[in-house]
């Protein structure tokens, strides 16, 4: 104790080596499992395997991906599907998440802890379970969906959604929404709880209550959280793979209608059935995914986040 105060009084700054020591484990682990593989992937995409020897070919793989009509069709198809997957999440998952959070934070609601837990549970389930369970629910043979529709006399509305080109991707997006709606709900809920009582009381004094209170007071205050959720959804959706793979398989049928960048990458990198894997083209697709996500995140960070108004209390 006395030594420390002595040092302070001498105003000598000792090397703060403990910062480096405490940072080192996380930094090393992160570098080993994230940064090195990332650069490994980028490097792999610049090579091509010719007679089992890796040959540097520059941007040749990217030229194939965008120049060869077969590759580019698959790529644009996957990117288009992925964008639709993202749009559904933004239009359905996030508004529902905000709505649920608004309802949950209402002080009049009873059993709110129960609802909160129940809605959040699917998020912690494995993709394999979710994919399998929904495949069974929607199965035209043994599923409960046709029977339930039959009970209310709407059997004619039943369609084998997962097997139809026009519905399969939307159906899978909605399954994913069902699974992950708990995350925006939780984040918005936390943001809403942190709005100070005084602000709400002041609003009530001015006669701003009910829906207009949510619209004019709460929503502007939670906008930064909504921004964060949007970017999390974006990154999550463009990295998605597991749900499609577990529900539709690696060929993402019917007729590649549910093929997203993740499944396209998997099929190319590891191969499928008689198709042998092509790690170089796979890495090229992985690099494109990285660039797409990087661009999205940059747009958010530099154009949107800086314009969001923050309120200090």
């Amino acid at each position, binding site marked *: 104790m006395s030594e420390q105060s002595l040092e302070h009084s001498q105003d000598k700054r000792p090397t703060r080596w403990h910062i480096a020591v405490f940072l080192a484990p996380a930094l090393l682990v992160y570098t080993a499992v994230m940064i090195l593989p990332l650069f490994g992937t980028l490097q792999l995409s610049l090579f091509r395997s010719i007679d089992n020897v890796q040959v540097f070919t520059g941007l040749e793989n990217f030229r194939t991906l965008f120049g060869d009509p*077969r590759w580019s069709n698959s790529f644009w198809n996957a990117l288009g599907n992925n964008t639709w997957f993202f749009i559904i999440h933004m239009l359905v998952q996030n508004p529902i998440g905000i709505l649920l959070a608004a309802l949950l934070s209402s002080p009049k609601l009873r059993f709110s802890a129960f609802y909160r837990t129940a809605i959040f549970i699917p998020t912690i389930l494995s993709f394999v379970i979710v994919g399998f369970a929904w495949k069974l629910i929607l199965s035209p*043979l043994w599923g409960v969906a046709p029977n339930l529709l039959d009970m209310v006399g709407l059997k004619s509305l039943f369609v084998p959604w997962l097997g139809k080109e026009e519905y399969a991707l939307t159906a899978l997006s909605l399954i994913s929404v069902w699974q992950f709606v708990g995350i925006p709900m939780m984040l918005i809920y936390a943001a809403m709880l942190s709005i100070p009582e005084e602000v709400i009381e002041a609003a009530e004094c001015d006669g701003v209550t009910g829906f207009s209170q949510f619209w004019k007071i709460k929503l502007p205050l939670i906008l930064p959280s909504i921004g964060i959720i949007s970017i999390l959804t974006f990154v999550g959706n463009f990295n998605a793979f597991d749900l499609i793979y577990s529900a539709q398989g690696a060929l993402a049928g019917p007729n590649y209608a549910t093929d997203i960048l993740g499944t396209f990458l998997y099929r190319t990198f590891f191969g499928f059935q008689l198709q042998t894997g092509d790690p170089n083209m796979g890495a090229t697709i992985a690099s494109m995914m990285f660039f797409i996500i990087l661009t999205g995140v940059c747009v958010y960070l530099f154009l949107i986040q800086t314009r969001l108004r923050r309120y200090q209390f």
Partner: protein
Amino acid sequence: MKHRLLTGLLMASSILGSAGIALAQDKTLTIESWRNDDLAIWQEKLIPAFEAKNPGIKVTFSPSAPTEYNAALNAKLDAGSAGDLITCRPFTSIDLYGKGQLADLTALPGMENFSDVAKSAWQTDDGKATFCVPMASVIHGFIYNKEAFDKLGIAVPATEEEFFAALDKIKADGTYIPMAMGTKDLWEAATMGYQNIGPNYWKGEEGRLALIKGEQKLTDADWVAPFATLAKWKPYLGDGFEAQSYPDSQNLFTLGRAAIFPAGSWEISTFNTQAQFKMGAFPPPVQKAGDTCYISDHTDIGLGLNPKSANADAAKAFLSWVASPEFATIYANALPGFFSLNSAPVKMEDPLAQEFVSWREKCKPTIRSTYQILSRGTPNLENETWVKSANVINGTETPEAAAAELQKGLDSWFKPAK
């Protein structure tokens, strides 16, 4: 250089292996396979039979999911963590051999038990080196519910006309779904559909080899016709067949809700244990009565040696046993529907398996058209055929358009050897 390294590794491993014997330790062999359905048969019948004769060698059968097998195996081989024995897919294993990931087994004792045709799926293009021991082939056809056929008074169809007449009759009666097949898993449509009925149109080996030589094209009438027939199957499939998966189809049939199952002979053992009714089988119907019939008798499974195996000697002993008539008999009877490729005749007990194998006598056998050479490039003809067959049955693409797309994809990389 690579070869010398490999020999060095092999030598080192054999020395290490014999050191193991000196210490009287059990050597463990691991088999990589996609046949997870066969786990019980390997553990209860095949492995004990081998271990009883070869004390000191323990064998483990470690299967993975069929569609993931190739990807998983390649990753394991590249990482050096693959098992000692590797189950070989037909024709594609040549890539592994080329990369030095499968050992040359041409001189393996027991290899003389197989004909050249049986070995062709696991040989280099010049036929000089063989790298997998042929284990089994599968035959395509249709399995039907005998009770349903008797009840409705339907005779086993021999021609296409009779086949569709039978389907109409079953549909009109309404008790049974005429045919149990779905398009969700894609491969069902291609393997049980296109490759099942196709050989009758393209005349088996004749058409298949002509395609490889470039004398025929997938857009020729003989290759479009099977698609046209498949398109006619749609009304006879169950409700929502677009979302019906392969296990769904199997269950529909074994629960007695469907009358006909477009099948591969590998179904026999599962169907025998699950179905409560009598079953029969018929080969793909011919176009006109009296036409020569062709069947797909596809060389499907082989077993190869991982050159990096630490127990190469023990593994070779196991492979020689796999090449023996003893193995053939146990295997063919334990797994009715997987027909031995061994030249020695194998006696089978199962009536359904006998029915399938009897077609070898009257019909001309061929293998699946997309497997040899034609699936080496990108886009892959086999995988594309899955997607297109499903499209044709779903009615989202015409037979002509599907065939044209397939040929276009093939033309983009395949140059027939002149």
